[in-house]
């Protein structure tokens, strides 16, 4: 342990002393955290709490990617809703069966003062206010095949906090190409899911989902609601898994998946399949390369747009 004595300054010892007092999380783990870097893709409902806790715990460098601006919510400003209509729409929506997009009103990192400004700026300011000693890197752009490798290469661990199907395949493939562990969280309505992909021989996203879901599953449901605290819980759990991977402490949620049902307060951790030999990204005969990744059309593959446009109600 004394070999790390050079890496924690007196200020750092003071700041992280609560961690250092943990029997199972000592000086070495905190030193690992301080040396590590985490890229959070998406600064919305999942990304906001994940970013706050990653900054607070003392990850050395935290990158934030998002192209969006802070809005009071994502509904079209000009809409007018009357209650009868809203209820009708709610009914409709419950049959609309959304599976792919759920932006979150309650992105706790973004204060009203930042409405209209970049989400990355807003998130970075919040992180710096909590812990000025962490290096925060702002990537104010959409994460696309053209910039993904270049951005992700500089980080050790990736947190997928996005909200659409093509981004999830793209981020997975980029992690496989670059060999980065991927902390994947998702939330919709009152449910949430969490797992760690591409970690230590475990499965990747494509091992579980080789084929994208049918677009009929998402066609008439440009948006669905979400209770903000649900992505809050999943985002915190993503931070926890990233901290465990970064500090090399504990057993990350690889080969297992956490399923949260908020309404019934049921949480289960289930065992999922291992790495698939047939996987087109990470399998035995996979031929995924940086060049192939750059050329792959994820919107075409999933038949869904990378950037989810705000719901426009036509009542």
């Amino acid at each position, binding site marked *: 342990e004394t070999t790390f004595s050079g890496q924690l300054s007196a200020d750092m010892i003071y700041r992280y002393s609560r961690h250092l007092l943990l029997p199972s999380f000592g000086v070495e783990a905190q030193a690992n955290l301080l040396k590590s870097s985490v890229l959070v893709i*998406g600064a*919305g*409902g*999942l*990304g906001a709490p994940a970013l706050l806790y990653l900054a607070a715990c003392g990850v050395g460098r935290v990158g934030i990617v998002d192209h969006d601006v802070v809005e009071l919510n994502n509904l079209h400003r000009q809409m007018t809703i009357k209650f009868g209509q809203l209820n009708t729409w709610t009914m409709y929506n*419950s*049959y609309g*069966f*959304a*599976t*792919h*997009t*759920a*932006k*979150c009103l309650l992105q706790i990192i973004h204060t009203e003062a930042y409405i209209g400004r970049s989400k990355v700026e807003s998130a970075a300011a919040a992180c710096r206010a909590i812990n000025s000693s962490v290096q925060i890197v702002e990537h104010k752009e959409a994460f696309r095949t053209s910039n993904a490798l270049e951005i992700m290469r500089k980080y050790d661990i990736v947190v997928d*906090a*996005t*909200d*659409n*199907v093509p981004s*999830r395949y793209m981020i997975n493939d980029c992690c496989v190409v670059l060999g980065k562990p991927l902390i994947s*969280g*998702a*939330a*919709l*309505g009152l*449910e*949430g*899911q969490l797992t760690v992909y591409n970690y230590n021989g475990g499965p990747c996203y494509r091992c*579980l*989902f*080789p*084929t*994208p*879901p*049918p677009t*009929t*599953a998402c066609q008439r449901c440009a948006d*669905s609601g*979400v209770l903000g605290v649900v*992505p809050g819980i999943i985002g915190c759990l993503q931070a926890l898994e990233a901290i465990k991977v970064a500090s090399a402490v504990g057993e990350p949620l690889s080969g297992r*998946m956490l*399923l949260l*049902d908020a309404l*019934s307060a049921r949480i*289960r*951790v*289930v*065992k*999922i*399949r291992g790495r698939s030999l047939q996987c087109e990204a990470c399998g035995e005969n996979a031929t995924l390369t940086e060049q192939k990744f750059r050329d792959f059309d994820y919107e075409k593959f999933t038949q869904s747009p990378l950037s989810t446009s705000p719901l426009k109600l036509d009542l």
Partner: protein
Amino acid sequence: MQLTLEFGGGLELLCNSVKIHQVNVGTQAEGMKQLTMKHLLSWVRTNLIKERPEMFMKGDTVRPGVLVLINDCDWELSGQLETVLEEKDVVVFISTLHGG
């Protein structure tokens, strides 16, 4: 055979928004000695799915994006469609989420 079937991630909307179903799936009438997941899927499609079955199945298996868990284990680990079910098994069908 007594089974607990659970639907989540939106799939419950195909079954009148009911997430948990305690069901009794007969095997004798059909002359089956064993109940496999293949049989169960077709039973679910006939007896529980009230609308848009294409959101649940594709061909003779579940549609892409649906995870199947038997007693909290991915059915890939037990033989997928060929898995033989036992009394009181819990089978979960959950659609993967992409929101955030």
